[in-house]
């Protein structure tokens, strides 16, 4: 497995002088599920949003270090952010459908790229919805509003919207925190099939989910990357006492 992201000494400070990432260095391999876990405020979301530069929207005061994506430094001001976000998609913790129909939600990314051919759009919508395991539930009402779906369906719709662009990487920021156990199970199941095609980076909303889905795991505590490695190493024999204690549920 080669690495798709290489992060070197990444430091990020928000405008309230809160240092959200304190010298994080790690690598994220292709076609695997990398889990970023740890208690809230550890910097997981911040790191995810660095990977597709959504942090540009937040009040970031200072960023330093290097984040290489296929060898190119993402923090460089010359990066084409729009192009990057098409390759590195993200799904948020709360389902965020756009105020459009199901069909238009899924093909939104393609439309703004200028795709007009109906056949291409149809194909992308079906593929996205199938990969997100939502097709069977909505194929007969693609013109209905995205808000007509249940929370779990909306979340899969957002995933379909991301997948329709055929990105290389899918970032998931606590994708199941607002969902019921059944929807959660469906999304976790889906991740296992998706990792053959995509690289997945997920900040799960609890340590159980982290242990269930991870190929690689990284433990974050207050902006520091305590340790990272493959699933067996982190969850079975963690090197750091704090990792051990967090996994056992002694804090967090």
């Amino acid at each position, binding site marked *: 497995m080669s690495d798709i992201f290489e992060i070197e000494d990444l430091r990020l400070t928000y405008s309230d002088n809160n240092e959200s990432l304190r010298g994080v260095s790690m690598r994220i391999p292709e076609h695997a599920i990398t889990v970023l876990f740890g208690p809230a405020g550890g910097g997981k979301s911040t790191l995810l949003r660095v990977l597709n530069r*959504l942090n540009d929207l937040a009040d970031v005061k200072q960023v330093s270090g290097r984040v290489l994506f296929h060898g190119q430094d993402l923090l460089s001001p010359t990066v084409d952010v*729009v192009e990057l976000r098409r390759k590195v*998609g993200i799904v948020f913790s709360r389902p965020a459908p756009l105020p459009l129909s199901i069909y238009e939600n899924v093909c*939104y990314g393609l439309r703004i790229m200028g795709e007009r051919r109906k056949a291409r759009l149809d194909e992308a919508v079906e593929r996205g919805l199938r990969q997100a395991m939502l097709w069977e539930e909505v194929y007969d009402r693609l013109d209905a509003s995205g808000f007509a779906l249940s929370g779990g369906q909306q979340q899969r719709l957002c995933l379909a919207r991301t997948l329709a*662009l055929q990105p290389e990487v899918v970032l998931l920021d606590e994708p199941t925190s607002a969902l019921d156990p059944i929807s959660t199970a469906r999304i976790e199941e889906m991740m296992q099939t998706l990792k053959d095609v995509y690289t997945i980076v997920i900040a799960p909303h609890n340590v159980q989910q982290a242990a269930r889905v991870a190929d690689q795991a990284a433990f974050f505590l207050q902006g520091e990357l305590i340790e990272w490695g493959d699933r067996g190493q982190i969850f079975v024999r963690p090197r750091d006492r704090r990792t051990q204690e967090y996994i056992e549920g002694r804090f967090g």
Partner: protein
Amino acid sequence: MTRQTKQTAPQQDRLVTLLIRLSGYSSILLVTLIFIFLMKEGLPALADVGIGELFTDRWYPIEGYFGILPLISGSLIVTLGAMLVSVPLGVGTAIYLSEVAPSSTREVVKPLVEVLAGLPSVVLGFLGIIAAAPLLRRLLDLPTGLTAFAGALLLGLIAIPTIVSIAEDALNTVPAAYRQAALAVGATPWQTIWGVTLPAARSGVLTAVMLGMGRALGETMAVMMVTGNAPTLPHGLDALFMPVRTMTATIASEMGEVATGSAHYQVLFLIGIVLFLFSLVVNVLASSVSFRQRKRAERLLS
């Protein structure tokens, strides 16, 4: 203590409810009374002057010609012109403030725009006569600068703060999740504004436009000062650069010199009724649009 509040609360409640109900009823009563008065004074004109005579193009009340078409068209030209100025500028400013400007700029500019809304229109009218009209006359080589165009510009200025303020609020209430979701699939900031944020705030922005239009339609002082006050029916497109007279300006300038109960007096009230109907239509449109927004907001919550 709990017991005490339990004893006094109902009485206080009843008193407050009564006061609120009274003030509610009194405003309804006042509006009804005004409406009845307007109808009573104005409607006889339909019979005394005659509908056929009213909808002609000559307004010479002293000689008994009561054609109100020039006044209606004057109001429409000036209002539509004002909308052409104020909608692009107002909505554009709202988008800039809500979506583009850094928060430090927004915190300074938004209150300034709202202060502008409080500027007395007579001051703007004065500015129009002294500065804008001569400038327009020279620039456009017109016989006079006091034209519908000057009025439209001025009214546009008056309507802008209303539009900016309300449209900006509407854009601000668009959930941040929409913007993030659009940006996350590679939309440029402009695509996000045009394709997602603005449509999501559509009804609020439309309400802003309608209210701005209501403001422009009802404005009297500024238009009376700069439109030249010539009650002529426009022929062709150059009407925009000719003097016109609006319904509001006619009422304001002639009401003082008519004999109570005369035909002229009745027609002025009839113009008031027409103006009232125009405002009513604009307001009903505005509120039906914002009502639809509320229904959609309820859907979002469920």
